[in-house]
């Protein structure tokens, strides 16, 4: 393999030839080069990252628009706070300015996700049908996406209001937005917690001895 042909051996056999130098082998040991080649190969293979990071699109509401609340929509208000705490209550703030309505949960599988799914039976029912059809390849991806959007946008679908107080961490917000994706919530908004919300949480914490 991989010999270097120096063309040795041909010609030059004159009669008056002086004593010939000892013929060196024309074979070149390529082992070190190949070793290095594989080393580089390994290095580049390990350092190359093919998958780019993924993104969650976010279009925050413009500040000055007053929030219009639709009465016919079932809604859930979620307040994210420090220490991965998630407070929630059904409905909007005006209906429930009593700290007895607030409940506390977390980001585990049995936490806020279960609560959203339990309260959003309408969409969940339609989505199971849709997922079945999609899995059986009865509908294409683009049709599935369209139908999914229309299900999530229906009047009966739940509207989630995500509020954050000053202690909430960024990861909490991303996890919450992610839950919207997992739970097929198409209608949600991300806003700051208002004064009454924060007061309610404080009340709740005092009553239940939560720090």
């Amino acid at each position, binding site marked *: 393999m991989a010999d270097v042909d120096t063309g040795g051996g041909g010609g030059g056999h004159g009669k008056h030839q002086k004593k010939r130098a000892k013929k060196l082998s024309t074979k070149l040991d390529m082992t070190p080069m190949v070793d290095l*080649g594989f080393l*580089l190969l390994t290095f580049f*293979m390990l350092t190359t990252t093919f998958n780019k990071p993924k*993104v969650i699109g976010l279009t925050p509401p413009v500040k000055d628009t007053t929030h219009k609340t639709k009465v016919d929509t079932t809604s859930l208000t979620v307040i994210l706070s420090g220490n991965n705490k998630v407070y929630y209550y059904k409905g909007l703030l005006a209906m429930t300015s009593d700290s007895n309505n607030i409940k506390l949960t977390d980001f585990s599988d049995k936490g806020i996700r279960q609560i959203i799914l339990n309260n959003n039976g309408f969409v969940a029912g339609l989505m199971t049908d849709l997922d079945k059809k999609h899995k059986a390849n009865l509908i294409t991806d683009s049709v599935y996406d369209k139908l999914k959007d229309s299900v999530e946008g229906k009047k009966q679908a739940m509207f989630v209001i995500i509020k954050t107080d000053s*202690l909430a961490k*960024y990861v909490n917000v991303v996890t919450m937005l992610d839950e919207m994706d997992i739970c097929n919530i198409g209608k949600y908004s991300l806003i700051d917690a208002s004064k009454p919300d924060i007061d309610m949480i404080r009340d709740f914490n005092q009553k239940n001895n939560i720090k």
Partner: protein
Amino acid sequence: MPKIKLPRSSPSIDMTPMVDLAFLLVTFFMLTTKFRPDEAVTVTIPASVSTTKIPDNVTTVSIDSAGRVFYDMDSKDVRETLITYMAGRYKIVLTAEDQQRFSIMGAFGIPMAKMKEYIEDQGAGRKILNQQTMGIPTDSTKGDELADWVNLGITADATVVANKVAAGNKDAKRSSFAIKADSKAKYKDIKRVIDICQKQGVSHFELITTVRSRPK
């Protein structure tokens, strides 16, 4: 009957095709690898189940766990235009070489007052500045430099893209806006950045995350 002697095959294998392939792969990986410049800030991004890929041309605002703000733009041409605008607004004199250096450096979180020093020191000094810096100032009472970066960044981006389109490059696209924040960062810090960007006319943000598997 005499035994038939099978010709003994040589135990050495011809490795040429394997080595050829190895070097082909080396070449491929060498050419496709893009070495990133030293990151000015380390950010541990949160995970999501999203499958949307990050757009090719992004303007990134990074926020680390302490709430420091860093700014970065992918496009080299836009960066070169942007730094001339910024230097003009803050009355800083930069050489052509400084502008060139700025166009290829990564994310930065330096107030404009120290920008020249930061650009010109490419060694240990820059690392120290990165550690010491409080990030790009975002406080409107003390001079909101992030608003200027975003504002002029959009202008520079628009100008460069318009020039490219005029020159016949129809694929030239405006940059998208991405937020790369540390999991532990306080959301109110991110909110402040989003508010500043919104005031400059940015309406849509891409929150950069890593992948996690979708729960069942």
